[in-house]
């Protein structure tokens, strides 16, 4: 009897442990996923664009440039917007930055999660537009001057950025003495000086040659990530869009509306734009987006 009892016990013990473990795993997964879903659903949306439309008026008539665009950008995200040339990508950025007023729809910026209420948005244009009549240092301070916030702490922040991104020794140089990549870095620091939460990048690499372009994209990406900024990049270069973004939004021809949206997940560790280009799912994303842009029906 005692032997049987013993053997019975010896079987029951591991069974209970196993059952407990099973329940534990199930339970923890349940909790884990619940929290994850909850977190994803409640990711703070820095920018919320709802049914945005924009109409251009000229003497030749009116043109619908942007038609019913809705999307959200959450804090820390890097979103690329691709579309054919002249589809209204730059107009979209001008609308978000407030340089243009929308014809219909809404652009909502969540004030509660902003670190910088007054200058929440930094805008980088296609060319660096550094002023030749100013030194590099004076160029970097331009934004602070215009916004009348040339305070000692802001100047200290600029100095810190110049130091961190290897431009300190070039402060007294004229912009024309710098390389294309360095000029772009100066332009980025000029924008960052006002500590914006959201960066709008309007094809900021298009004026550079291919080699420089790849390096500068890496540079910019690292700086943006290091400074913890949210970014919205507009480009017509699919590879560039994928290499930098967490999400790629594809716009149609004019009037621009959203054709598709791809969430980019790459396996590459310590992602940089250059490493992303070598990721094995990169070309698959490229093909999908290319098909979308060219109206080729999906084969899968």
């Amino acid at each position, binding site marked *: 009897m005692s032997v049987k009892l013993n053997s019975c016990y010896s079987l029951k013990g591991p069974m209970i442990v196993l059952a407990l473990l099973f329940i534990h795993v199930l339970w923890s997964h349940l909790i884990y996923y619940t929290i994850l879903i909850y977190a994803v659903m409640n990711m703070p949306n820095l920018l919320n664009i709802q049914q945005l439309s924009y109409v251009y008026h000229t003497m030749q008539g009116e043109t619908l440039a942007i038609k019913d665009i809705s999307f959200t950008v959450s804090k820390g995200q890097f979103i690329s917007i691709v579309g054919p040339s002249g589809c209204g990508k730059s107009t979209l950025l001008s609308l978000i*930055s407030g340089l243009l007023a929308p014809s219909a729809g809404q652009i909502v910026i969540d004030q509660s999660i902003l670190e910088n209420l007054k200058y929440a948005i930094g805008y980088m244009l296609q060319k660096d537009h550094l002023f030749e009549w*100013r030194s590099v240092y004076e160029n970097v301070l331009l934004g602070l001057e*215009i916004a009348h916030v040339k305070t000692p702490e802001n100047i200290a922040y600029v100095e810190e950025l110049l130091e961190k991104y290897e431009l300190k020794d070039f402060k007294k140089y004229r912009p024309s003495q710098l390389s294309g990549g360095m000029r772009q870095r100066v332009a980025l620091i000029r924008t960052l000086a006002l500590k914006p939460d959201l960066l709008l990048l309007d094809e900021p690499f298009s004026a550079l040659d291919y080699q420089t372009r790849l390096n500068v994209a890496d540079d910019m990406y690292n700086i943006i990530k290091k400074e913890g900024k949210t970014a919205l990049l507009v480009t017509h270069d699919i590879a560039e869009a994928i290499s930098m973004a967490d999400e790629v939004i594809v716009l149609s021809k004019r009037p621009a509306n959203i054709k598709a949206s791809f969430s980019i997940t790459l396996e590459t560790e310590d992602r940089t734009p250059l490493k992303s280009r070598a990721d094995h799912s990169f070309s698959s994303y490229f093909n999908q987006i290319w098909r979308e842009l060219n109206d080729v029906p999906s084969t899968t």
Partner: protein
Amino acid sequence: MTSQAQHDFMKHQHQQKIWISIYQLLILISFLGIWELAANMKWIDPFIFSSPTRVVTTFVDMLLKGSLLNHIGITLYETLVSFTLGSFLGILIAIILWWCEKVAKTLEPYLIVLNSLPKTALAPIIIVWLGNTTKSIIFTAISVSIIVTIINVYYGFSQVDVEKIKLIRTFGGQKGAILSKVVIPANYANIISTMKVNIGLSLIGVIIGEFLVARAGLGYLIVYGSQIFKLDWVMMSLIILGILATVLYEVILLIEKKVQKIGG
């Protein structure tokens, strides 16, 4: 460090510079020489054409009597005042036109008419209105230079890259910031080159004014000298005028270099 070829090239360039200076000097010397010779040999009538020696003796004579410095001073003073006022007002009006596009568009045809009009034709009326005074001379000179200044500077302002203006606007800058941070600095070179033209135009205006007002100055000397057949006065005044114009132009060039150093 430098190669032989580079050395030769530099030497060649240097020599060329020296030769050009020699040629320039030769032209001056031969001009003065032939003029003197022709007057002495009575190929030309020295009473009408004067001669270098006569000009020099007249110059020394008038300098010693004290009236010449006074005449030069008056012309210089009038030129500088009208140049400063003309440039300043011209740039100011250009800024106003840039600021209010509606005003600029409205005034465009009038500016074109005024620009084409030979401003010297206004001088007699100005003298009737303002009297036979220095004020009239300065007004005449300003009328000659101001319209060109307005048109040149305004055109430069309107040519400023719209993307650069957009950059200012992305930082929340309004019209004032656009003007002071981009439009004016981008036009430094344009403004200086307008000033180079202006200094010459102001001198033209002043001389015309002095012709008509006829009380003092180099313009007065020229008119009065030709009326009483003192052609030595006229020739001397012309030469002084040439030197004065060159000096004034060089001063503007000097300012240009200074501004380039400061403004880039």
